């Protein structure tokens, strides 16, 4: 007889089940060897597929063919005139920008935090199960700490998250509008927790739920299906993103803060 849970293994492996069903599958996997083996084999096949894809490179001639075939926009003369006009306009713009910044009219440091969070949730999604590969694939937090320090000039403690059963998969970084972000990926049975750290530029964070954890003000929010926790410390902003329940997220975030 085939387990009724079997049909959910595939979406479970992809992190596409809603929380109650995912919990049900998770509980079943703890008891059912057959389903557990099937899931593990599924993940092994996925890993092999990714390995094969990562080893492949497009032929160099293909890039040349693509670039030589891209449509051109304007004639050289028009390009010169536009370049001249651009340079002159740029000079004026720079002067104005300096004036405005100095008068705090254009607060660069403060931006729309909700818009930024939307972008960060989108980036986090890219690292989903079987998603974008990490630059530093290591479960040793020291590797990630060293890499972040060297690459981004960011120094912060990285939780190993073993307390919650999560394993650190690795680290990566990305840029958005000139800002650099450190990304850490934790995984447990197909569930992903993202941990993003970046410099605080005076962001104004005003979410509905606030929890005091010692001296730190932890704020809890949500974007679509992703639960979020954010706090500031030492000039940095720490953001946790996960599909776990709010209560699990809260406990997880509190434990991370207590590591400081």
């Amino acid at each position, binding site marked *: 007889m085939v387990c009724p849970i079997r*049909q959910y293994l*595939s*979406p479970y492996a*992809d992190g*596409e089940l809603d929380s109650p069903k995912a919990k049900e599958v998770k509980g079943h996997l703890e008891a059912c060897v057959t389903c557990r*083996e*099937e899931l*593990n*084999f*599924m993940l*092994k*096949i*996925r890993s*092999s*597929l*990714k*390995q*094969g*894809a990562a080893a*492949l*490179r*497009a*032929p160099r001639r*293909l*890039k040349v*063919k*693509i*670039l030589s*075939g*891209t*449509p051109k*926009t*304007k004639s050289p003369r*028009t*390009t010169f005139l*536009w*370049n001249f*006009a*651009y340079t002159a*306009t740029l000079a004026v713009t720079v002067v104005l920008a300096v004036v405005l910044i100095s008068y705090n009219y254009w607060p660069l440091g403060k931006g729309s935090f909700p818009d930024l969070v939307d*972008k960060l949730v*989108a*980036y986090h*999604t*890219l*690292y*989903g*199960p*079987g*998603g*974008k590969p990490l630059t530093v694939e290591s479960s040793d937090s020291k590797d990630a700490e060293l890499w972040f320090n060297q690459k981004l000039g960011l120094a912060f403690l990285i939780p190993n998250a073993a307390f919650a059963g999560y394993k650190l998969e690795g680290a990566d970084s990305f840029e958005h509008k000139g800002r650099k972000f450190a990304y850490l990926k934790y995984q447990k049975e197909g569930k992903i927790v993202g941990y993003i750290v970046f410099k605080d530029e005076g962001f104004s964070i005003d979410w509905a739920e606030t929890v005091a954890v010692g001296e730190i003000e932890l704020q809890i929010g949500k974007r679509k299906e992703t639960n979020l926790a954010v706090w500031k410390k030492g000039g940095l902003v720490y953001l946790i993103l996960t599909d776990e329940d709010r209560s699990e997220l809260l406990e997880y975030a509190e434990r991370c803060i207590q590591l400081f």
Partner: protein
Amino acid sequence: MIFIRDQKKRKKFEEEALSHLDSLYYGALKLAGHQQDAEDLVQETYSKAFSHLNQLRDLVKIKPWLYQIMINTWKNWRSKRSKEVVLDHTEEWAGWLTQNAQINPQSHLMNPEKEIIDRELCETVQSALMHLPSHYRVVVFLSDIEGFSYKEISEIIGRPIGTVMSRLSRARSHLSHMLKKYKERA
């Protein structure tokens, strides 16, 4: 200034688009099954993308957008050529693997070295993928290799999320069946 902004935008778009060249080429190989066809498919994909730059609102979504163009292009090719690249001979493939093991006794041994088994599995799974029907292959490489969500895959291939889910389940079931020799060893 508008033109210079367009130039800068175009350059940034080109850089971003070409950063996915290896992934797209791999996907094209899995679709077309032939190196020359794969190169032509990728080239046509980029040509269309560069010609319709204004349709892309957010650079973050460039990868699924490129895949959408490539898959639609490939579908058009298929309908014109009336040719399915790959055979749906799942049972025959499983039988071939067993036969191959008998012909080459070394590969049939229970090799305790996990690395050798993994390497063999890696090579074999690439071939097994090509023996899936094309509509299964597409969802497997969009999900397992590129890591797109079901929603993104649904938008790329133009099918409901439920269809994506069922195709993935069946595709993985087929792959698991084809590779069962490795499952026992794993």
